[in-house]
């Protein structure tokens, strides 16, 4: 099945499910039943389905439980379903009561983190791939290697009795090369950093002899590579770190939801 066909199918199923919910809600209003109970239970079940994705990821090689990518699709579309259901259940207005407000905030934060994750997992990987893929765990090693290589080239420049490159390195490159830099500018595709270096290199070449030019050109190549690795580091870090927010929030959400459920039934007179 092609991507657009799959998306069309998934969106259709999602809309259909929501229409069924709306219809049942409309029917419910004619029975004096409280719709909040209906939407609440559906919401809880849907949230538990979202949790199953985490569980599935922990099971390796389980063909019986569908592919992880299929679960990912399910997670995304059930997520959208849950957002709509939550709005049916809680409405747009901020609820009253500390617990309900905590639950509301946690859900909103969870939702926003999920939507953010969905955006970056769809947008960043193609950009990173175009920039040349590199394994996340290799990035720091490669950057260290670049640092060592640049230092070695600077030492070479000192051997030809000139400290111009060394001074330039000290002043402009050392800080840049020591560790991954410019996390946020890279995320926002801010290119001025590298353009600034480019300009510095061009300016410097006027003061260098041919041998030094050869060295500085090599350093220039390494700096560009470091910049590329920084971009990869920023993108890949974000792809991993958004889960630091999304997953713990989901635990809180489940806890508060269960407490909410117990209290509702306890104070309304039982199940």
């Amino acid at each position, binding site marked *: 099945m092609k991507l657009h066909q799959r998306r069309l199918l998934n969106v259709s199923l999602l809309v259909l499910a929501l229409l069924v919910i709306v219809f049942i809600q409309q029917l419910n209003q004619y029975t004096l039943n409280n719709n909040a109970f209906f939407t609440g239970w559906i919401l809880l079940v849907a949230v538990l389905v979202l949790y199953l994705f985490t569980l599935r990821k922990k099971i390796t090689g389980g063909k019986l439980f569908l592919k992880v990518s299929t679960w990912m699709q399910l997670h995304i579309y059930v997520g959208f379903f849950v957002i709509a259901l939550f709005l049916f259940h809680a409405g747009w207005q901020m609820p009253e009561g*500390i617990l309900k407000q905590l639950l509301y905030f946690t859900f909103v934060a969870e939702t926003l983190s999920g939507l953010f994750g969905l955006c970056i997992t769809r947008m960043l990987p193609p950009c990173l791939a175009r920039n040349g893929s590199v394994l996340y765990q290799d990035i720091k090693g490669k950057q260290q290697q670049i640092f060592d290589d640049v230092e070695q080239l600077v030492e070479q420049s000192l051997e030809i009795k000139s400290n111009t490159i060394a001074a330039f390195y000290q002043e402009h490159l050392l800080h840049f090369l020591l560790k991954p830099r410019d996390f946020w500018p890279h995320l926002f595709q801010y290119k001025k950093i590298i353009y600034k270096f480019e300009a510095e290199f061009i300016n410097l070449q006027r003061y260098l002899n041919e041998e030094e030019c050869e060295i500085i050109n090599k350093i220039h190549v390494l700096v560009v590579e470091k910049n590329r690795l920084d971009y990869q580091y920023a993108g890949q870090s974000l792809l991993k770190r958004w889960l630091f927010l999304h997953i713990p929030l989901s635990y809180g959400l489940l806890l508060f939801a269960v407490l909410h459920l117990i209290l509702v039934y306890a104070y309304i007179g039982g199940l």
Partner: protein
Amino acid sequence: MRWNFFNKQQKWVCGRAEIGKSCRSGSDHQGDCHSEYECQPLQKEDRWYCASPTPCAQGALPDGGCSKKLGFCLPQLSQKAKISRINLWLFIAFISIFLFIIAAKAYSPGELSSNHSFLESECQSCHSSGGLKSINILLQALQPFQHNTENALCVDCHQFGEQAGLAHNLSHSHLQALTEKVTQQPLNSTLLMATLAQSGLDDQSEKNISCISCHHEHQGTQHDLTAINDKNCQSCHQQTFTEFKDHPEFSEYPYADKTQINFNHPEHIAKNFADEAAVQPENCNDCHQPDNKGELMLSKGFDQSCRACHLKQIQGDSQAGSKGIAVFSLMGMDIETLKAKGFVTGSWPEDADSELSVFMRLLLSNDPKAVKALNILEKMDTLDLRKASNIQLQAATDLIWSIKTLLATLQSQGHNALKQSLEKSLANSLSSTKFSALVSLLPPALFNEALKYWFPLLNQELKLYQQNDLIALKQLLNAPVIAEIKHIIPSAITETIEDDLLADDGLLGGDDLDSLMADDDDDLLSLDEEDSFDEPQESSVKLTTSAEEWVKSGGWYQSYDSLYYRPSVHEDPFLKGWLDLSASHADKNFQAIFKTISKPQAPGMCLKCHTLTDDKAIHWTAKRPDKNHQSFTRYAHDRHLAMAGIKNCATCHQFSQTSEKSQSFKSIEKQQCSSCHAEQKASESCTTCHNYHIGELKLKLKQTKLSVFQDKVAK
């Protein structure tokens, strides 16, 4: 086991991984480094080889050691371990918040509405689980839902009667009767939805409805608990409509129910104000005003609207015949026939020709002999007993003595005897206030005076009758003096008093009386101090008016064989008391009283205007707002009358000469409302005009024990 940097599941990674120089062996699972050398050479047969993926030039040492010494590193947490650790801390944070909420009982779902805000810390007032703690709350949550239990807590304060949980607080049979009145509506989308929604449900009509179905608390102080969604109404009212234009046509609205005061507006105006334009009200507001809430249009009441013309009617000024009600009256009796046939009746006023009053009948109902006699004489004319059988004659005699006994008892014991007699008839006790209204200050002097007129020697007669000394009784009555007394004792204030009847030198003087009054015959004819006639005073007062006229402003008076009460004011306590007492009483004597005093032309004319409720109580006032009672419809008169589109009351209330209703107004048509109450205009919600809870709505008041008295008792 050594952990590998590339193994995603490992917790620790080599400390040199950050700089891309991780060793092959990595850290152990406790985060300790054991790799002093770059690799751990592998042995093949009898030789050692470098195990690095890029074998070094030096190769392995002959003893199997690595030739590249690195020194120990400081292992770092793997990426996964870092995530797990952060997750753990956040999870602990959430658990802490969770526990804090439970410990601090901070799980209120929101502020209570302002009406219930005083219950903010008293959860148990509304929730059966309100006083529970921790685990018990969980257990309560797992209990089967019992909305009756929760409803009971609501109706503990909000009292809707025994049918609190039923729709509209009406009984199932009442609801069924109402449902049958409703005509079938054509199928529409709303009806289809409602039918579909309830197709899977049992018949709910006899089941209790949970209060929380409509009233949602904890929505903030400003939340309106009574705001009801129209669809809640439509859950039962399946012949539904979403717009007011589809509302069923009104049926005799708002005149379907009887009014509390009979008043025919056009007839009254035509009859009374045709020639008296000066006193004619100019507009509706002269007699009507809205209540405090601006909903109900009230009458201003008798004093402001009716007194000027109708007080005299109440006092009987224009009354033909007697202007008072005969309370104590003696029936006419054919005494001659009774005497002729040997029945001893004692004295009986010769001028008595009335019927026994309904009040007397009630008082006699406690005397079995009198009851029996009255039954026998039910359809007889007691003024002519010539053709009566012996049984009937005996009954007449018995009735005479019962009446005398009753009157003598009332004379001697006064109000106590009257109250006991009434309570016995009622089979219930009477409060002092009620009894006071029923006797309305009956003057003892007038009562005694009447008795003296009717039965001058009542006590002597009764004494001899009770002793069965009929001979002495006959002698007493045959004494010519007594015969004279019967005719001469003045009748209270109605007759001209000219003679000193009881003077020694008068009719009671002389030997005849002396012989009768002598003490030698068991004091039969002696008069007790109580019984003795008052010493008549010499008087020559001549009344120029009758007793009836004398009490023109109301009160008691005697006329011949009857003692009357004439109504004095609007809300006359005597009439009000007896109407209240007799209206709903099933006993035939009470019914007879009610029939007598409730006639439109009866003195006081109370029921000419005041109507009866379905329970046979009397509407003593026009409709008044009752905060404890709610009807199905409501209408804000003040807001509507202030609107520019409505000219005046007659915009809606138009006289109808053909209507049979007492108000004679044309029914209000739906069209009059739907011109404004339409989409994009005025509200079309059900609850704009209808209340859900119908009938008695009360708030239970708290009982406060007077501890100061309890303390005294304790001391």
